[in-house]
């Protein structure tokens, strides 16, 4: 059961990190496109 909870925690933190990294990459590309 503890493993199941650990997987939830890892999934949640991974989603947060990936979304924020994608956001930054998108901004870098957008900025370069218009500068």
């Amino acid at each position, binding site marked *: 059961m*503890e493993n199941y909870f*650990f997987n939830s925690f890892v999934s949640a933190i991974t989603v*947060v990190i990936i*979304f*924020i990294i994608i956001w930054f990459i998108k901004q870098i590309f957008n900025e370069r496109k*218009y500068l």
Partner: protein
Amino acid sequence: MKLFFSKRINVIVAVAVFTLMVFNIYNIINNTPMIPDQFWAQKIFYFHVPIAWTGFLSYFIVMIAGVLYLINKKTIWDHLGFAAAEIGTLFVVLVLITGPIWAKPIWGTWWTWEPRLTTTLILFLIYVGYFMLRTFGGHPERTSRYAAVLGIVAFFDVPIIFYSVRFWEERYQSHPQVEITKQNPEIIIPFLISLVIFTILFSFMLFYRVHVLRVTFNRKNN
């Protein structure tokens, strides 16, 4: 205009924010107590709630920027409102993803139509409408004006989400109603650290997004 990261100060701030976030994750993993019955799943709380807070702070900024834009029609308020709306929606999406990831092992279901979840989903859907308006609104000045009004109206859902655990009867509630001030310092301190770090991350993202919107605007209008 120059690239955002061509300024040394912006690079220094970015590195500082990144370091703080790494420290925050380390702190959540290693320095927070294991709660019986929930174990690791409870640790989701240390970033789920700060992300929700920054999302709502973001929508508050959309409202303020909307009011200022309607008063003096300066483009900077329009850019600030748009940037805050985007980042706020990113954070609300993260809340709507991390919440069900916590709920599945604890409640046994991903989603339930209880007041706080439903009102948060409504807020997200209002902002889907906001972005549709921004994309398909037609005349840019009119779109900005309508978006400012929608941003102001949408914010009324935030206090409803906050007080939803009190507005509706207890039998409809399943969202945890934790009074943070009554918690053990072992929980409060990492929670507050996480709250501050996510707010710093949000401020940096907002600053960067406004810069990108200004670059885009200048290119399209010159």
